[in-house]
């Protein structure tokens, strides 16, 4: 019984983390049709900014601990905004209109560039910002002690998901964005500034990625290469859910999170296998993902 509870708790924590990472990826794909390989690097940049800022804050012992949470989020927002605008205006804008698969390779090049940029800016030694994590303490569920920070992550992820959904479905801007998703050319003809929407979407996506990194930073040691591990997980999640669908990303995250937690507890040797196993299984039966739309072939 305890292990089942552990699977559920671990699974939902892992799922909410996955959703945080995958949300930006799926938003960018949905609007811009760019499968962004560099998303993991945005995650890593967020983690580095947050870890160095929070680490600096605590090393100098300036003030109360709650400010560090604001710093986490603030670091992510600033980093995501800056990197997002630079990348969209400086690189992607020049590349629009190319094949989807070529865009994957272009963002792969971007990933390589960003990985080394991070090494130049932050060096190769690990960064720690564990204080926000330990500060919140733990809650006991029977025999299990779960970190409150992780539980808060579940809440943050749910709020973020609902916020994204509300933005897309309930606001005017969201409606315009959906029009762009549906048919870019007609949207342009109707007077929508698609380029601006692209910039907004991309910056939103990078900020979400950076935020995911910043929120994860207190729970891990921030080292080079974390982005490269994360990106393939995020791919698995969004591909399972259906590329471009936020609800799909949530379901994909739950599916992957719970099955990985189950694997860790019952059959640890299948931990990594199970994630891509689920992905292959879903794709075998629903090539467009669980929530993806089937596209008609164009001649």
């Amino acid at each position, binding site marked *: 019984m305890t292990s089942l509870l552990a699977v559920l708790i671990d699974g939902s924590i892992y799922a909410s983390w996955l959703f945080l990472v995958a949300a930006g990826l799926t938003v960018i794909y949905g609007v811009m049709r760019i499968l962004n390989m560099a998303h993991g690097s945005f995650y890593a940049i967020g983690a580095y900014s947050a870890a160095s800022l929070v680490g600096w804050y605590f090393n100098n012992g300036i003030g109360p601990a709650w400010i560090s949470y604001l710093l986490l989020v603030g670091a992510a927002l600033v980093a995501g905004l800056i990197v997002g605008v630079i990348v969209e205006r400086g690189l992607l804008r020049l590349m629009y209109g190319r094949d989807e698969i070529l865009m994957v390779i272009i963002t792969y090049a971007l990933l*390589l560039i960003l990985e080394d940029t991070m090494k130049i800016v932050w060096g190769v030694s690990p960064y720690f910002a564990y204080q926000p994590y330990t500060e919140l303490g733990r809650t006991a569920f029977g025999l299990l002690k779960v970190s409150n920070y992780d539980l808060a992550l579940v809440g943050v992820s749910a709020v973020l998901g609902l916020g994204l959904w509300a933005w897309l479905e309930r606001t005017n801007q969201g409606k315009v964005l959906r029009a762009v998703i549906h048919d870019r050319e007609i949207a342009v003809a109707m007077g929508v500034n698609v380029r601006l929407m692209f910039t907004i979407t991309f910056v939103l996506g990078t900020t979400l990625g950076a935020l995911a990194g910043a929120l994860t930073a207190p729970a891990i040691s921030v080292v080079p290469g974390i982005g490269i591990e994360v990106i393939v997980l995020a*791919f698995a999640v969004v*591909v399972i859910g259906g590329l471009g669908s936020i609800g799909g990303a949530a379901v994909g995250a739950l599916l992957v999170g719970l099955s990985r937690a189950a694997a860790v507890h019952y059959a640890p040797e299948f931990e*990594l296998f199970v994630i*891509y196993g689920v992905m292959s299984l879903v*794709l075998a039966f629903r090539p467009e993902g669980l929530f993806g739309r089937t596209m008609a*072939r164009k001649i």
Partner: protein
Amino acid sequence: MRFDKTEISLALVAIACVLFGFVSPGWLIFLLTIALAKALVVQGVVMQMRSGLVSFGQGLFYCIGGYTVGMGGQFFGIHDAIAALALGMAVAIVVAMILGLLLTRYRDIFFAMLSLAFSMILFGILVKSQGLGSTDGFNVHNWTVFGWAPDTGADSQQTVFTMTVLAGLLIAVLIHRYTKAGIGVICEAVRENEVRVEYLGLSPRWLLYGNYVAAASVSALGGGLTALATGHVDPEMAYWTTSGEFIFIALLGGLGHVAAPFIAAIVFSVVRTYSIEFVPNTWQMILGFTLLGVIVFLPKGLWSLVSREKSGERT
């Protein structure tokens, strides 16, 4: 059997390479061996690119080739290098025949992602396999060629080099003939317009299936040769960044000619060796900018620099 100009030049270059191997220093031989073996894996990527599919998981077959050669010697008593290489290709073919049934239903990014997922599955299995050394992998040694056991060190390096050059020549000639033959031409037609190929009464799916399996076997051969040359295999061979490297080399060379991947792989290895030595922390950045440069300025790869001189020829 008649040989055309390309095949004769390939053969001459191969002979020159083998002879060069006897006089050149060990480090250069090693570098060339790895480059040529990788080029074989890249040939697999290029074969699929010709038909419009970009595999982000060719590391799967690279890894299968390497591990089969290693495990053959370690656990099954197959010490003959050529038999082990052939076994690696056979295993890759069987795996590709199964995965291909699923993969050929996908195009574009879905193909890329699913092929990536399959290679990550293998990575996940290998990382958790204690018997196979987990993340460390294991060493590949004590192999023979037709019963002859080369001494470790320079002698075996020489032997692997010669084998790699000869395998490269054989595969290059086969691929050259394949792309000129009907099926190879139709593969390019599938890239241009799949539906029209269907209207011609052909099945793009089975064409792509055959192409996928063939590409898998070529890549596995490259993996096996790499294992023999480095004397080591580890799960990193199946990690997706390894496959990314193969795509890089493929785009660098371009699809214009069967020799392009070999040239690109050698350029890649030389640049890589020196950048890791002199600028270890900006090596990937150089790669990234080069990749962007190739996409923007040399969309047909390095080979277009060579072929541009012959104006009037079909590129």
